[in-house]
């Protein structure tokens, strides 16, 4: 294979994987702690992208847009958690999943209402190229990779070094015991949900210059996000990181080999992994709460 093609393919896969990772953390954390499958994270992803677009039009800076997208996504996530999830946390997981799907769907409708149906372009904030072993790589993609790596490190530090993070880790193991120590777990839930929403918004904002922003964008990445969390194992941050990059590489290298493989190969890998380990690479055999 042409080494130039290979290098740019790997970088492309890493950047896609980065976006998937940012987007999947929310799903994974929310499942781990609250035992919900929060499909509405895909809505915050779309919101992040759209706010990036709008703020770019207003201010002329994509970076301000991305920041604004994170803030707005976090606020919307907070509202959704307050008004919907807080009432249904106790329910069966399939039902919270349906409710979150409803939120996603309603959100797509609202986005169509506000921004219209047509795909919208967001320019890349940096057009410069870097040369890696003689291959020209867009610097923006490298920045996306670096940002997602920084997010991983910060999430790791948050979970391991702060008392809230430790409580969240404890809650992932056993919510009841955390409550038994006098800790208000609903505050932890809200914190986790907002963090997830903000990161999903970040994913959307960073992805926007690489794709066209359109109302269905959440639904379009949904299967890939699913694959990431399934392969990695629901509830595991490390698993999410590993599998996001696996899926990213499979998509981009698969596409080099044979076009349609890009969509099919991750699914085949997912099936294979589930066959060997039905709870994903790093997923534990957690019971329903």
């Amino acid at each position, binding site marked *: 294979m042409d080494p130039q093609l290979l290098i740019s393919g790997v970088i492309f896969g890493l950047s896609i994987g980065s976006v998937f990772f940012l987007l999947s953390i929310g799903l994974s954390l929310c499942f781990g702690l609250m035992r919900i499958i929060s499909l509405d994270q895909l809505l915050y992803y779309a919101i992040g992208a759209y706010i990036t677009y709008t703020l770019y039009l207003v201010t002329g800076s994509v970076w301000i847009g991305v920041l604004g997208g994170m803030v707005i996504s976090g606020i919307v996530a907070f509202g959704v958690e307050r008004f919907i999830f807080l009432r249904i946390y106790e329910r069966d997981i399939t039902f919270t999943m349906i409710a979150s799907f409803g939120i996603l769907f309603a959100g797509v409708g609202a986005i169509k209402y506000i921004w219209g149906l047509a795909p919208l372009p967001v320019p890349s904030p940096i057009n410069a190229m870097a040369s890696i072993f003689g291959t020209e790589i867009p610097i923006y993609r490298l920045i996306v990779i670096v940002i997602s790596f920084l997010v991983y490190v910060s999430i790791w530090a948050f979970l391991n070094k702060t*008392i809230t993070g*430790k*409580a969240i*880790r*404890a809650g*992932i*193991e*056993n919510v*009841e*015991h*955390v*409550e*038994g*120590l*006098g*800790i*208000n*777990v609903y505050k932890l839930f809200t914190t986790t949900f907002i963090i997830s929403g903000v990161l999903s918004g970040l994913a959307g904002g960073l992805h926007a210059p690489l794709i066209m922003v359109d109302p269905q964008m959440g639904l379009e990445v949904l299967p890939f996000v699913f694959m990431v969390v399934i392969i990695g194992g629901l509830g595991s941050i490390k698993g999410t990181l590993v599998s996001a990059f696996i899926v990213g590489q499979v998509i981009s290298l698969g596409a080099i080999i044979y076009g349609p493989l890009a969509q099919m190969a991750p699914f085949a890998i997912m099936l294979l992994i589930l066959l060997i380990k039905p709870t994903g690479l790093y997923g534990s055999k957690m019971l329903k709460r």
Partner: protein
Amino acid sequence: MPTDEILAVEGLNVAYGESKVLFDVSIHINANEIVSCVGRNGAGKSTLLRTISGFVKPTSGTVMFADTSLVGIKCYDIARMGLKYIPQDKKVFSDLTVRENLELGSYATQDYNWDKVTEYFPKLTLLMERKAGYLSGGERQMLMIGRALLGDPKVLLVDEPTEGLAPSIVAQLQNVFLELSKKAALVIVEQNLSLVSAISQRVYAVKEGRVVHEISDEGEIKNNVCEKYL
């Protein structure tokens, strides 16, 4: 009733969905008293403790903790008020170190004085950096009880603390419970009758969701009268 009553449960009825588990249960605990609950598996002992500590909602009945009614209060608020439940399952946070487990015990009440834990369980000082998942059963139980002591609870509800533990550890726990009763009231669910007779001032016998007997005579307790309820 004496005036130093700290926990009063009256006419408690509890059901899981359709199936009723507790029927009209009333128990009273005085400050600094050790009271045991005995009964067969499935009698409803855990359910009783879990209802008192707010994890299960009763269908009717009252729970008074000192002068406060606990019914309808969130379990984490009850714990913070000084009524701690130590569950049966001996599940510490296995992914966290012993130190982190204790930190979480301190978090709610901001009581970081760990001397009161290590005073009873000196062994924990040596294990601080170990992941709790690697502790032995006895060490886990020490950690569970230890982290519950932070925040100076007034009542401890301990669910089958010696289940599956080595005799030497049971003996150690027995001393700890006696020491603890200087500071708090203890309600202990236990199958180990020698422990029950050694430390309890009173015993409630629970059978099929009802309190069928209350033994307060020391001689009767020492003579293992409760055996027939197991």
